[in-house]
């Protein structure tokens, strides 16, 4: 993994990019949100606080998905009516990046995927069934979430969001997709739900008494 080093424009602390395509990161010293430009790093905001979230994953956590090793290098924290969740930005040893979501310790791995044909005209409500290239997905949840915090490296700029609408779709064989309406046009993430054991995670967070 290629690493590029520079310094935080706010506090001068060393900033390391572990993934060449990262566009944004946070300063681990002063929590400034930093965006990489062609020549420099620019401070665009600040993370006020991180929620007391229960995820056992942290930046540097390693795991395996579909026989490929990955490491978590960043995350977006969301909050909604029924709790919060993390989208961990993971990069594989092949250079690809994906998202490992942890919603109340229920895990799923997804990747940004182009919308299948005919998808854009459908209104997605709970119970709506959509045909994605021959696989039938059913909308199970529509979530109106709020952006809560970002940490570490992300593949795009993400720091000034407020309300984000997500639609989750599932299949009988554990396939999973999320439509993220916070972007224009919306983004589609496709993957599957996974168990903690399947991911073979290492370098996890510590829990008092566990």
């Amino acid at each position, binding site marked *: 993994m290629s690493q590029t080093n520079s310094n935080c424009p706010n506090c001068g*602390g060393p900033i390391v990019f572990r993934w060449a395509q990262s566009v944004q990161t946070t300063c*681990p*010293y002063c*929590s400034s949100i930093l965006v990489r430009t062609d020549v420099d790093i620019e401070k665009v905001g600040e993370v006020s606080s991180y*929620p*007391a*979230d*229960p995820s*056992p994953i*942290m*930046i540097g956590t390693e795991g395996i998905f579909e026989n490929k090793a990955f490491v978590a290098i960043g995350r977006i924290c969301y909050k909604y009516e*029924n*709790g919060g969740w993390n989208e961990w930005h993971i990069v594989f040893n092949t250079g690809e990046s994906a998202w490992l979501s942890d919603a*109340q*310790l*229920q895990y*799923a791995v997804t990747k940004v995927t182009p919308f299948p044909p005919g998808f854009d005209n459908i209104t997605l409500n*709970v119970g709506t069934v959509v045909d994605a290239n021959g696989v039938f997905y*059913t909308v*199970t*949840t529509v979530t109106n979430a709020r952006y809560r915090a970002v940490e570490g490296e992300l593949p795009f700029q993400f720091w000034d969001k407020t309300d984000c609408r997500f639609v989750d779709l*599932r*299949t*009988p*064989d*554990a*396939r*999973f997709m999320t439509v993220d309406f916070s972007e224009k046009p919306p983004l589609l993430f496709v993957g599957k*739900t996974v*168990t*903690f*054991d399947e991911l073979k*995670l290492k370098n*996890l*967070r*510590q*829990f*008092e*008494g*566990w």
Partner: protein
Amino acid sequence: MAAQRPQAKIRAFNCPNCGNSVQLRGMGTSLSAACPSCLSILDTSDERVRLLQRAAKKMERFEPKIPLGTRGKVDGKQYEVTGFQHRTIMADGVEYGWDEYVLYNPFHGFRYLTEYTGHWNDIVAVLSLPAPSDVMGHAAVSHEDRKFKLFQTSNPTTKFVLGEFPWRVKLNDTVNSKDYVDSPYSLASETDDNETTWSRAQYIPGKEIWSAFNLKGSPPTPQGVYSNQPNPYGSTKPMWAMMVVFSILLLLTMIVTSFMAAGETVFQSKYYFVSGSGEPSFVTPTFEMKGGEKNVEVEIRTDLQNDWMYLGLALINENTGTAYDFGKEISFYSGSDSDGSWTEGDKADSVSIGGVPGGKYYLRVEPDMEKTLGSELFGSKRVNYEIKVRRDVAVIWPYFVVWPFLLIPPLWAILRRYSFEGKRWAESDPSGNAAFSSGEDDEDDD
């Protein structure tokens, strides 16, 4: 030093209602919790704890059988009991209540245990989506190669809570629930205003819970039959296999004993009898019957035609004088009428005597026939007959009498199995009608 993700800690605060201290062990997963002192329900989703619901002054208390904070291994993973709720449903005007335990592991997440009258279930969330199906016209769902039949539609209501929950728990909150059964598993869907969630339960014996959580005493004895309780009578296949094995053994025994039987002819002689010709009785020469107690078959063949004869017989031991008295009537008629030719009776017959000891024997024979008017006028009737004595003859009929009894155990097993299933489904309420019934009418509409 760069900011590290801090170690997650047990959170403690004071109840905004009563001021007593509350501890949260859910490491940030808990959206709500009950104050252990005043039983008020608190919103713990944020840094600022808020009072959601004050507990009623007079509330029925339910004690968890597994105390909060207890840790135990389920499915090979360590879990801590962090929450407890008592929920009820109404059926036929009667309230039925059960207990639910929230089990937490900071890595593997949540699972749940339920207990209803001694019946325990281990429950995990289902993340794939069960597909609608049917079992012989009965509503069902399919999930991971199993089909679950709709068992019950109900509206569980939360009546009492302790500890903390990864959702917003509220007293008297009601959800719509559907239970589908394929013992020892069941699938349940719970629908509220926003979404439908699925979970899968597996029936688990109380004693496994007791040993997993190292609980004192013994688990409550299960009452009645629970919806996904495994049928204790299992498959009837082993019973049928046993029956087949015993049938083969019986057949082999029959074949072997038939082959072993000597079937030796020890005496054979031809006689004739003319009715009304003086003293008819006579004795045969003695014959030897070897070995211990064995059966004897006396076979009689005649040339009777439209007539009958009676043979009074006695098998007498020459040395001891022991006599086996028996008799045989033989008759044979034939003719023809508008339906064609017919026959009745048989010209030959045999008599079996069991357990005759070895030794020297002779037969005393006393033939008898009807004296007719014709015989007076046209001379007496004459019948030729033969007596044959065989020793140690193979007997197979008892095998055919015994064989049907081999069917009893498997048929009994089937009966037991289906009677258990009958009890299981007698409690079923697929449409949820019982929930709205007053109790006057306790018939299921299945």
